[in-house]
């Protein structure tokens, strides 16, 4: 049986399909009569259907919902009550009330105008909206709270764009970790947690405009939930706080200045000593975004380090305690290696993470970005606008690297690519550049210019331009290398016979849309010209 069939069988057996009815029933609101909004609507709709009437639900006239059969939605105000989820409307409890309130707000009645918020309707920052403040004070009974003053707790992962996260602050107290979170906003430093020294009562509140929509429409609370604690499962979550959205806010105790200095001095002294630095690094093998640290014990020319310095570049970020540090290692001959690391707390101890950056230079040597292939045999320099593309291989001894300057501008440099259609781990790469070029030219899926002689890094090679909608080659076990969002693209390919024993062919591909090709070739030229090969 095929693997795909086995997977579907397994999943469908363990988790049978969810019906529309089952899903909607999750929004049933308990009430004394035991009936629900959903089934009341169903019954009402059935009556309408029987009468031959056709209604469109959700109009602004409010005539579809029969208020005599619809229970009043309830809101659970006390955070300590179970279940910690409230649904229904607040402060109005149904559409009819909202429309009546809308009329009074339109007439300028201050008892209702506070529910109008043009900024919220325009998609502005929600935290200061009066609808949230009133709900938190009147219904949740919180005296002090904060929101929006910290990263990562609002976003697409929060369960919907309208859900806004608030934390409760103990009145009259300050955050016991304020002295450690020197970079945190004053609002956070002044907000003491209410559960224990680290944990905050956290609530997610959703609002909407059920009646009139737009700058004049009334806002009501439609749902709120007390968020539960759930520890980060991975380093990725610690480093990407958006992934933590929807959980109770728990602040992490960051390292003190003394602890931070001890960690960094141990790590950097080991690099000077030439051994033992790995023990200070945190790494998740399954996460492609983590990388091995290049130039761990020496510069690209092999010079060992003689001394070091470090500085705190940013943080600690609240509430994850993540600190960004910049380190410099000075080698004999004056070469300076500069790198960025995160310091995070994982499983109760502090460690360094390298590689979790998208758009910053992580390692430079004398100010140039350092890029290594084959353990440093191949080096080349990149500078903005080029940055390493996400998905680079995690090992500096890897076979290829990707860079991008925009959505449709890529440079890929690597060794021993496989011809199109043979991208698996079992296929042997072409033995030389000419064989690879011939296989590409023989492929009817590509339009090519033929080859021209070229010199790259002091070695003779081949240059060819091609166009197509598929990959002309891929690197071993790594599949397609190009911009997935392009349906057709143009590529300038440079191929040379690799002068050492570590590989057979070195390939450089400059990829772009067909319309932008000549410009991108020029932008990529400094990378190609910086290439150096030091093959044993």
């Amino acid at each position: 049986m095929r693997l795909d069939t086995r997977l579907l069988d397994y999943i469908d057996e363990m988790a049978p399909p969810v019906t529309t009815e089952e899903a909607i029933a999750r929004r049933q609101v308990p009430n004394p009569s035991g009936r629900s909004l959903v089934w009341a609507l169903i019954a009402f709709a059935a009556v309408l259907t029987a009468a031959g009437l056709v209604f469109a639900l959700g109009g602004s006239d409010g005539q579809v919902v029969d208020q005599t059969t619809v229970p009043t939605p309830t809101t659970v105000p006390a955070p300590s009550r179970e279940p910690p989820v409230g649904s229904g409307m607040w402060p109005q409890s149904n559409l009819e009330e909202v429309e009546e309130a809308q009329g009074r707000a339109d007439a300028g009645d201050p008892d209702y105008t506070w529910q109008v918020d043009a900024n919220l309707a325009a998609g502005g920052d929600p935290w200061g909206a009066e609808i949230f403040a009133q709900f938190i004070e009147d219904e949740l009974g919180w005296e002090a709270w904060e929101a929006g003053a910290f990263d990562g707790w609002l976003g697409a992962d929060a369960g919907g764009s309208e859900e806004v996260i608030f934390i409760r602050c103990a009145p009259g107290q300050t955050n016991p970790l304020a002295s450690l979170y020197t970079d945190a906003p004053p609002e956070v430093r002044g907000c003491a947690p209410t559960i224990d020294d680290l944990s905050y009562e956290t609530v997610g509140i959703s609002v909407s405009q059920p009646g009139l929509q737009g700058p004049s429409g009334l806002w009501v609370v439609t749902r709120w939930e007390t968020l539960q604690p759930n520890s980060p499962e991975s380093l990725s979550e610690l480093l990407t706080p958006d992934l933590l959205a929807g959980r109770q806010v728990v602040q992490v105790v960051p390292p003190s200045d003394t602890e931070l200095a001890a960690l960094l001095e141990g790590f950097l002294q080991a690099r000077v000593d030439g051994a033992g630095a790995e023990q200070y690094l945190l790494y998740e093998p399954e996460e492609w975004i983590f990388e091995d640290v290049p130039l761990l014990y020496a510069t690209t020319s092999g010079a060992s380090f003689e001394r070091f310095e470090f500085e705190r570049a940013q943080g600690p970020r609240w509430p994850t305690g993540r600190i960004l540090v910049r380190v410099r290692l000075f080698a004999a001959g004056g070469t300076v290696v500069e790198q960025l690391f995160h310091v995070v707390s994982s499983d109760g101890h502090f460690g360094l993470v390298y590689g979790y950056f998208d758009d910053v230079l992580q390692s430079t040597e004398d100010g140039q970005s350092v890029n290594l292939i084959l353990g440093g045999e191949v080096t080349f320099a990149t500078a903005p606008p080029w940055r390493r593309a996400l998905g680079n291989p995690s090992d500096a001894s890897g076979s290829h690297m990707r860079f991008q300057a925009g959505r449709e501008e890529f440079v890929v440099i690597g060794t021993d690519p496989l011809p199109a259609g043979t991208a698996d781990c079992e296929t042997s790469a072409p033995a030389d550049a000419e064989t690879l070029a011939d296989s590409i030219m023989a492929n009817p899926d590509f339009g090519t210019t033929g080859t021209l002689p070229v010199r790259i890094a002091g070695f003779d090679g081949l240059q060819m331009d091609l166009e197509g909608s598929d990959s002309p080659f891929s690197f071993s076990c790594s599949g397609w290398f190009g911009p997935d969002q392009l349906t057709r693209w143009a590529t300038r390919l440079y191929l040379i016979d690799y002068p050492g024993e570590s590989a057979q062919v070195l390939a450089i591909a400059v990829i772009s849309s067909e319309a932008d090709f000549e410009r991108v070739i020029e932008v990529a030229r400094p990378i190609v010209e910086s290439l150096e090969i030091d093959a044993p």
Partner: protein
Amino acid sequence: MVKPAIPEVVVGPGFVAFVRDVEPKLRRALVAGFGADIGREATAEALAYGWEHWERLRLSENPAGYLYRVGQSWARRRPLRRVLFPDPSPANEPWVEPGLGPALRALSLRQRQAVVLVHAMGLSQAETATMLGLKPTSVQNHLQRGLSRLRIALGVNDET
């Protein structure tokens, strides 16, 4: 008592058809990520959210992807359960590969999702990336590593 099927007039035009089309992808993706129990519950929760916000959701560019993120957010709030992927019952379901539960447990969350969506659901890597909110290159990496580990765990070495 058998509850009647919910008529279209109640759930909104197109919602029933939307659920019919999206539910398998959504459920299998969430089950792959968070296990059978939480994944299925997350699917129901996401669809319920979809019903609540149908008028806006149906106009969005990627409603399935949006609901996936709703379900994912919901699932992440749940306490972790020990058995994400129970062993199938060979007596009741003899056609189900008995080693799949342990094999899936051995994959990372993203590897499981990539394998299921691409190889079981037939989505392209670009579609999978859109649904999971990842970059296509990321999906590709997770897919390759996940497949490799799955094949090793199941003792298959071909394209089956």
